[in-house]
């Protein structure tokens, strides 16, 4: 392998998009395929400036359909490959990601959410939760990490390649325009130096030896002839997914061990405001807790139920009209006594800790 891009710890103050490019470099990505869309463009901008020095590759495609499918080609060739997109581009990538689900292709997609529906804004939203977790015709056999800050963009971009290659489900980093464009501090590092073993890649096609002579040819398909044949495949995937889920589910809590009347539930960058709100409200003597799923797919169902069973109310804050809340409600279903849900929804708009505190005080 070529020289490590980073040795030791490198502190930096940079945009989230630049962080993703560096993380991909440190994760050993061989090739990025991409198509321009705001607010993810600078991932490509930084990547294309970094790659000549480090012997990596970039290909600009004709659209996001192609960016998704060329990425799958690169992955099946045995290379660590990824793409990045947002909004309408994420829509176009759903097709290729269903092929990744069906053929268990360890692709990685970084999504920097922008406003929706349609072209909407290039700025920020959390409106790609439903599409990223459950998009396409299929069963949502994917892994989605919702990051909240630049350090997580770095850490989880590296982790996403390992999750994808270990479990062979398409894996997503769900960021947003704020994280993409904002400058913030980050500590970058070489994963191996931190004891993070990078999962090796392997080619699906083009393995050594002559097919039909030295080895059996690889024939990969996504079409099935009969209903039961398909069902068997999908149920096997479900079993694999269920086995994986407890191994990779991640979440974060704060102040839930103390006496709690209301639990603030949020994800991504909104959880930073929620955490700040909980800290301030606690100082003011209010019994408030904080829960944040990091994996939206698979969702930390048991963990949320455990915290939710202690409170009478949950406040769900998100920059969308209840896309995340649907995942929360599904997770709470079946509880003996599910708490009441209070909604703080701002579609395509950022949420501050003041707004969360105000809403919390109203309902406490």
């Amino acid at each position, binding site marked *: 392998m070529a020289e490590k891009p980073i040795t030791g710890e490198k502190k930096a103050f940079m945009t989230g998009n630049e962080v993703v490019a560096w993380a991909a470099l440190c994760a050993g990505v*061989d*090739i990025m*395929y991409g198509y321009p869309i705001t607010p993810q463009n600078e991932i490509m901008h930084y990547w294309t400036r970094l790659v000549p020095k480090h012997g990596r*590759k970039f*290909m600009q*495609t*004709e*659209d996001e*359909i*192609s960016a998704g*499918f*060329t*990425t*799958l*080609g*690169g992955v*099946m*060739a*045995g*290379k660590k*490959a990824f793409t990045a997109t947002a909004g309408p581009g994420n829509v176009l990538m759903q*097709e*290729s990601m269903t*092929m990744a689900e069906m053929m268990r292709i360890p692709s990685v997609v970084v999504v920097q959410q922008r406003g929706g529906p349609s072209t909407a804004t290039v700025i920020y939203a959390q409106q790609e939760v439903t599409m990223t977790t459950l998009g396409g015709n299929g069963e949502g056999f994917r892994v989605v990490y919702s990051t909240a800050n630049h350090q997580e963009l770095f850490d989880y971009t590296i982790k996403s390649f390992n999750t994808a290659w270990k479990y062979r489900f398409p894996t997503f980093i769900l960021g947003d325009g704020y994280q993409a464009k904002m400058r913030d501090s980050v500590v970058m590092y070489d994963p191996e130096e931190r004891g993070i073993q990078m999962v090796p890649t392997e*080619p*699906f*096609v*083009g*393995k050594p*030896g*002559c*097919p*039909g*002579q030295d080895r059996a*040819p*690889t*024939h*990969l*398909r*996504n*079409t099935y002839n009969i209903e039961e044949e398909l069902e068997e495949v999908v149920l096997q995937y479900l079993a694999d997914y269920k086995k994986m889920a407890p191994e990779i589910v991640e979440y974060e809590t704060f102040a839930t061990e103390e006496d709690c009347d209301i639990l603030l539930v949020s994800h991504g960058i909104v959880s930073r405001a929620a955490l700040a709100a909980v800290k301030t409200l606690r100082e003011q003597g209010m019994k408030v807790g904080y829960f944040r799923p990091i994996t939206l797919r698979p969702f930390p169902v048991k963990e949320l139920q455990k915290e939710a069973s202690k409170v009478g109310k949950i406040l769900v804050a998100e920059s969308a009209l209840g896309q995340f809340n649907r995942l929360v409600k599904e997770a709470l279903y079946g509880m003996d006594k599910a708490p009441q849900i209070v909604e703080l929804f701002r579609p395509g708009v950022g949420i501050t800790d003041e707004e969360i505190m105000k809403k919390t005080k109203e309902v406490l």
Partner: protein
Amino acid sequence: MSENLMSIQPSMPKCWNIATKPHKFCPGCGHGIVLKCLGEAIDELGIQERVVFGCDIGCSLLAWDFFACDTIQTHHGRTTPVMTGVKRAVPDRIVIAYMGDGGGYAIGSQHLFNSATRNEKITAILVNNTNYGMTGGQMAPTTLPGQKTETCPYGRDLENDGYPTKGPEAVAAITPEGAYIARGTVAKPRDLKKYIKKALETQLNGTGFSFVEALSGCPTNWRTNAADTWNMIEKKMTEFYEPKELKVPGKEG
């Protein structure tokens, strides 16, 4: 026919996957001839080990286990980008994107034409049978003027449905010198094999994009007997689609 003759196995290219023969295409379908030409070309060039074959959705999907070559079945229209992705990642592989006219000229036209303008070092082979076969004979970009299909039951009306796509002409117009573009026909398999071989040689030489359209028949959806099928392929189709080499590396067009 004597029992002895019946037991003779027809000659098949070495790179064919014998276990999946006889193949699954309809009787009279042209895919088998195109794939035989491709198989012989692969054998003659000795590149079986290096080939990654990609097939589209539509009748071409039935080729997913046709060769003893590593194969990826992709989505409708998406074979060109998948194989482009493979080639970019591992340039020493010889990648072949195999598709029908719907996959190449309609739903995947942006991929075909953009790969051509980028002069990707891949080989695309497109089978033109003037209709969507797998879905039951709808109008395709290649349906001839006046030709009846399920979605133009009174014949293709150029005012309403537009003109048929002349793919190789279009691709030849947007590719630089070094690319190889040809249209062959299953009625002349020797020429077709020659074109496919030249296309693969173009990829081996790394001079540019290579593209071969193969005129082919679909008696099932055309509802034609053998004589009418051949009449369609040899007479009617060639009136509109002239089989020829349109671009050859080293030869000024």
